[in-house]
């Protein structure tokens, strides 16, 4: 690389060439009559991503002259990116958010009140799964796009090898299965397989997994919108987690993604997760796929919850709002909702869809419906009601207190009391 400072004119030429190229690149996006921007983490995801693409195609077909510019931002960066865009006064036209992150946006008044739009379009939202979570301050600020109940994925062969004939259906059987399948197969002092897959490194994963134990013990993180951590149900749930940890039945320090990966590679016997675990299972080797199965989780009621919502910014031109609403309508329409169930392998939030043919095609579909109904009829949500605004903080507090309990050997009672105090302090 010759020194660049020799020859000022060469430098100038290079600079203008650079500027020209950059300008050309910047203007490369085609200009159309109307362009709606849509940012989502689901772009490119098999299943859900394909469905959104179909909605977009349908919209562009029925609205010639309008195109949707769809870009992807990874889930781990999504909240920050959305927050920056909104705070910098440049939100996307079609707003897609996870259900546990939209509350601060709604609280700032950044989201449009969809109530009038829904009324005018006569959109019937009765029994629309999880829609109640979209109510904020008396207004409907979004449309719920997915409500799921959790299932248990298990390695049938690993269970059978260790004398477990059927997947566990309650806590005692679960513990027994875990003990039987956590083994050191080659005698080198290191565990090769573990009975239970819980994401101990993941604040969200840990909170959801513990919720399963808490619910099975009859407890709940919040009661009537107020934190209720210092209750017998929660204490029992914590105790169960601690027992699994102390008996070393869980691989330490894994994130949710890593737990799923370990499961499909045959290192973990059971894991409780959302229906998306099924998509992950489909990427395993054929030999593994033949032994990986799904069933209802061993706790009752199962963990469940809202997943993601769609809405629009409140600061948008009326013309654009109309267009975005029509996009949302397509997504909410019955044929597309059914297609969602088909592509995503889980029931759509819209009520009253006939799933007979899907059930015939996909044997696990009725399992997903069963879990959904069990969770929603018990009013379960992973997002604790009343703590939506502080959810990230609560998650972190929960994570730290539970870690303290596990690592420092505190009692579940002490942990629960500490949790209650800390969470109340954030309100």
């Amino acid at each position: 690389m010759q020194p660049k400072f020799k020859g000022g004119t060469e430098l100038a030429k290079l600079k203008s060439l650079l500027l020209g190229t950059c300008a050309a690149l910047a203007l490369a996006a085609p200009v159309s009559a109307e362009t709606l921007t849509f940012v989502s983490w689901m772009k490119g995801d098999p299943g859900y991503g394909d469905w959104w693409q179909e909605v977009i195609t349908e919209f562009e077909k029925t609205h010639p002259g309008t195109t949707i510019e769809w870009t992807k931002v990874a889930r781990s960066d999504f909240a920050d990116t959305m927050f920056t865009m909104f705070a910098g006064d440049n939100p996307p036209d079609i707003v897609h958010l996870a259900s546990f992150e939209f509350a601060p946006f709604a609280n700032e008044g950044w989201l449009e009140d969809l109530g009038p739009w829904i009324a005018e379009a006569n959109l019937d939202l009765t029994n629309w799964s999880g829609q109640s979570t979209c109510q904020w301050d008396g207004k409907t600020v979004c449309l719920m796009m997915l409500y799921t109940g959790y299932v248990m994925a298990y390695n049938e062969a690993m269970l059978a090898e260790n004398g477990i004939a059927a997947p566990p259906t309650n806590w005692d059987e679960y513990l027994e299965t875990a003990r039987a399948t956590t083994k050191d197969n080659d005698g080198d002092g290191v565990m090769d397989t573990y009975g239970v897959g819980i994401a101990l490194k993941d604040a969200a994963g840990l909170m959801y997994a513990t919720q399963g134990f808490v619910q099975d013990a009859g407890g709940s993180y919040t009661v009537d919108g107020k934190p209720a951590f210092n209750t017998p149900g929660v204490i029992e749930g914590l105790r169960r987690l601690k027992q699994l940890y102390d008996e070393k039945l869980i691989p330490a320090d894994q994130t949710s993604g890593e737990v799923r990966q370990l499961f499909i590679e045959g290192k973990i016997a059971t894991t409780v997760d959302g229906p998306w675990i099924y998509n992950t299972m489909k990427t395993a080797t054929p030999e593994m796929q033949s032994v990986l199965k799904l069933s209802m989780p061993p706790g009752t009621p199962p963990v469940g919850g809202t997943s993601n919502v769609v809405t629009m910014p409140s600061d948008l031109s009326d013309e654009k709002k109309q267009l975005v609403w029509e996009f949302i309508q397509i997504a909410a329409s019955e044929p597309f909702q059914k297609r969602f169930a088909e592509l995503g392998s889980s029931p759509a939030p819209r009520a009253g869809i006939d799933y007979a043919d899907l059930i015939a095609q996909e044997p696990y579909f009725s399992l997903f419906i069963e879990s959904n109904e069990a969770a929603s009829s018990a009013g379960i949500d992973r997002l604790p009601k009343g703590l939506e605004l502080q959810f990230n903080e609560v998650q972190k507090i929960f994570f730290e207190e539970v870690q303290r309990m596990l690592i420092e050997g505190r009692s579940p009672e002490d942990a629960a009391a500490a949790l209650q105090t800390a969470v109340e302090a954030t309100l």
Partner: protein
Amino acid sequence: MIDFTAPRHRAKFGYLLLGPAVVLMAAIIVYPILLSVSISMQDVRIARIGGESEPWTFDNYIGLFQSAEFWEACWITSKFVLFVGGVSLVIALATAILVNQKFHGRSAARLLVMLPWAVPEVVATVIWAWMLDSSFGVVNWMLLRLGLISAQIPFTSDPTAAFFAVSFVMIWKGYPMMAIMLLAGLQSIPEEQYQAAEVDGAGVWQRFFYVTIPNLLPVIGVALIMTTLWVFRDFAIINVLTAGGPLGSTTTLSILTFEKSFAFFRMGEGAAVGVITLIICAILSRGMIGRFARSVH
């Protein structure tokens, strides 16, 4: 035209040269700093640019000075700075001297030494996270096989182990830059000084301490400032490896700033942490520049 070579105009020329850098900083950095100071003085959860601002108050700062987690973060940040900075310097110096020797494959060795720098931070951290994994990681496996430990080290759930794991990754990622700078600096040491020292009977270590180090001081000084500021601000490595845990044992001021601003939506407090970080860094830099970066001649 002013004759810039004349001594009395020399200073003007100096300021002119500094112009572009100052303008760039002023245009791009000053506004964010002022905005952050403003937000840090308001009791806001989410601050809107262009929105009405709340009345000014020192509550955020008072709250911080009274919170244990803030002081903990200060302590942890300084631990990282000292440990990572010190060890990186030693390793970088040793490496630079090593690849400055003449041997076959020297160019290739230099390239390989600098490779950790080329790997994106997030990817490097993920690989280290896997290698250090308590249950299935290769590091634990090797240490067990070699008999150096009797049980797996849970690098991300044991506070001490986590600190060292993060430090190690930071050193791994950070030392190449120092090494490159030191290598460049080694080139400008005149051979005559070494020869003169040898003639005077100086041994290898004496040549190192009396010729190499003094000549390298300006470069070492700059390298230390750069590493200090880098460790202060680093976010990606800690976030991916431990997310500030376990139990806050790797939560530096930078992690705290992000957490409060973007995760908990307490932008007022987050901005306050950021402003304090700025002040601390400014004081540190002033001190270090004073000590190290004067010209040797």
